[in-house]
């Protein structure tokens, strides 16, 4: 009756694999569908809009898909910087960025401009990742009313399909670092099915690794003269780790890496970009040469590395460009979602007419106060409502 699961099976049980993993084609299809839906909705409320940008009732000057995408990316970056400003640990940053990205897979900026959503998303992420800050303090520090932070939260949860777990590569990267350091000291043996010479041989191999290419992102460079010692190897490993960490912090969150690859592949790709010989050595000790998964894994990692490398900071919108896009958005956004706070309050109260509920509450309060007052009377409260 024993079922043996390996780590891959474990990943396949996660909601990230089941609901939030896509092939490039399906991702593009999904985004296109969302955008088209938003555009059709836009044409419905176009005649009502007072803006002069509408002509013939069609969306002439709406944001196109490309611009939507870039606006969302800009706000992903904004989420990152805000999280750093709060000095929250890195999982919060990754989770918040992923929540935002997932939200905009099924909703369009035309309906919910990211300016109103990203604060909620960040708050939700800090709650999920156990670095909770009270709402009042958060609202104060981010200079937003507390209602505005809470109002879109349910919408966000629905868009996330109530799956709040985001699998991240950071802990795995630490594990890899730990193993590499121990390999360098000759303490780690091999995995079963992989033929190596044992711990000492691995250590020797590490010492003899070729230096990283010039294009690698690590800061380490080989000593000009002299033999490489284990201490140098350890420096090299640490440098590779910090470079990989920077890559994970930036490009990994701002691209679609989390949708297209698994966290393990992402972290190994980042390490690959940082220090290629080191990573291939490491994979050599982990994957048997004759396994049929090995070439596939290597190609996947290479593809992910390419995706991460192709991103550059200049892709992100600058402040002026963002302002321009937002002005354009203002003219073509869905007006029914303008008052998120109001609709949230109505939903909370149960949806009945706000005035009736207020009347009832007032009457109840008056009756209660009257009763209290009569209780202090010399002869006690009135009986049966008489007198």
């Amino acid at each position, binding site marked *: 009756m024993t079922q043996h699961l390996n*780590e891959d099976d*474990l990943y396949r049980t996660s909601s990230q694999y089941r609901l939030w993993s896509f092939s490039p084609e399906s991702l593009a299809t999904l985004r296109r569908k969302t955008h088209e839906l938003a555009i059709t909705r836009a044409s419905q409320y176009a005649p009502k809009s007072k803006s002069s940008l509408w002509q013939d009732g069609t969306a002439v000057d709406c944001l196109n898909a490309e611009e939507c995408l870039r606006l969302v990316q800009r706000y992903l970056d904004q989420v990152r910087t805000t999280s750093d400003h709060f000095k929250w640990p890195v999982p919060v940053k990754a989770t918040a960025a992923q929540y935002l990205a997932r939200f905009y897979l099924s909703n369009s900026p035309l309906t919910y401009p990211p300016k109103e959503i990203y604060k909620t998303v960040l708050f939700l992420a800090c709650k999920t990742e156990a670095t909770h800050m009270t709402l009042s303090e958060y609202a104060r520090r981010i200079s937003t009313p507390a209602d505005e932070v809470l109002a879109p939260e349910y919408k966000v949860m629905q868009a996330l399909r109530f799956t709040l777990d985001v699998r991240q590569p950071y802990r795995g990267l630490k594990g*890899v670092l730990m193993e590499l350091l*121990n390999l360098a000291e000759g303490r780690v043996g091999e995995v079963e099915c992989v033929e190596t010479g044992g711990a000492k041989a691995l250590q020797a191999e590490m010492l003899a690794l070729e230096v990283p290419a010039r294009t690698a992102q690590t800061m380490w460079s080989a000593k000009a003269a002299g033999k490489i010692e284990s201490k140098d190897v350890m420096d090299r490993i640490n440098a590779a780790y910090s470079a990989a960490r920077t890559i994970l912090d930036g490009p990994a969150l701002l691209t679609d890496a989390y949708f297209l690859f698994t966290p393990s592949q992402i972290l190994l790709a980042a390490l690959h970009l940082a220090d290629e010989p080191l990573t291939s050595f490491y994979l050599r000790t982990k994957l048997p040469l004759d396994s049929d998964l090995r070439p596939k*894994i290597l190609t996947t990692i290479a593809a992910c590395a390419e995706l991460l490398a192709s991103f550059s900071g200049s892709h992100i919108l600058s402040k002026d460009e963002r302002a321009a896009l937002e002005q354009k958005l203002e003219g073509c956004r869905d007006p029914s979602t303008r008052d998120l706070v109001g609709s949230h309050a109505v939903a909370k109260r149960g949806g009945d007419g706000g005035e009736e509920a207020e009347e009832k509450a007032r009457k109840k309060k008056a009756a209660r106060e009257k009763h209290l007052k009569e209780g202090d009377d010399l002869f006690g409260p009135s009986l049966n409502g008489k007198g």
Partner: protein
Amino acid sequence: MSRIAPPKSAPVSKRDPRTGVVQSQDDVCPVCKSARYMNPSLRFLVNPECYHKMCESCVDRMFSHGPAACPIKGCGRTLRKHRFREQTFEDIKVEREVDIRKKVGATFNRREEDFETLLAFNDYLNDVEDITFNLINGIDLEETNKKFETYTRAHGKEIEENAQMAVQERQSFSAAQKLERQQARERREAARREEEEEKREVEENRRDVLNRLASGADAETVAKEGQRVQLKKRMDRQAATERQSYRRLKTLTKPEPEAPIDPFDGLRLVDSYFTLQDDYIWEGIQEARKDVKQTAGGYDVGDYAHRSLVAAFSGLGVFVADEITQRDQLAQNDGVVSEDVGLKDAKMIHAA
């Protein structure tokens, strides 16, 4: 002129040689008022319905044509001819009680062997006696009858089995008697042997204690040990006798111990990409090993290392693009998009 009453030639009452019932010449049938004086072979029959006695001829006369009402004034119960029988006991009340007891005994026929403790058996007997008493004396008849019925319905099968067992036992009665006598003999033997052994053990113990005291051991400890040994032996013997007591109560069977609960119900995680070493030297976790704040809560640094490495490789062999396209194609073929794929379905996709 006074006439001297002639001496009575025949005795007024004598015992019937066949049935042993005392018959008096003055016995009169309450229905037809015929006396034995006129009819020497007068026989009285009784119906267990109302326990009124009648002579045989009355019974024949009245009930041969089917059920009829009892002729005694005040009792109008319908009686049937085939239920009339000869009275066994002199006292009609005793007859009635015996009939009731027979009826109750036919239903409540559990034996001592069916009970696990003596207390349970006695409780059962007590309940049966309560019911019998109520029936005999006519107390709470409705309730008692209800109890009767519920019991019959609940234990119908058991009653039958016990009745059959009783029949069989009666047949093998003599064999059972012999067995009983033999068992009694064995028990006597065993008891005698026990006594002898006990005496012997006490002697031995005493000698042992003396020896030990003589060889210079501490008197108190020796005494205590001796007492403990004796006590243990006595307890063992008592338990043994209890177990083989002649009371044939049902033996308790202890249930088998349950297997320890497996929280994962057979699932096991296998590290296929790495082998966990015993120790990882790394500044990040070195202090945690010795830090009281971490170790006091039972935190294991090895768990952290294992978890980090599992996270490092979890999903390395999962090729998202291919698997998602495959799944979408399957979904399209099925015509149903099932988004909520659980673990089993994930394995199916993996196998596919």
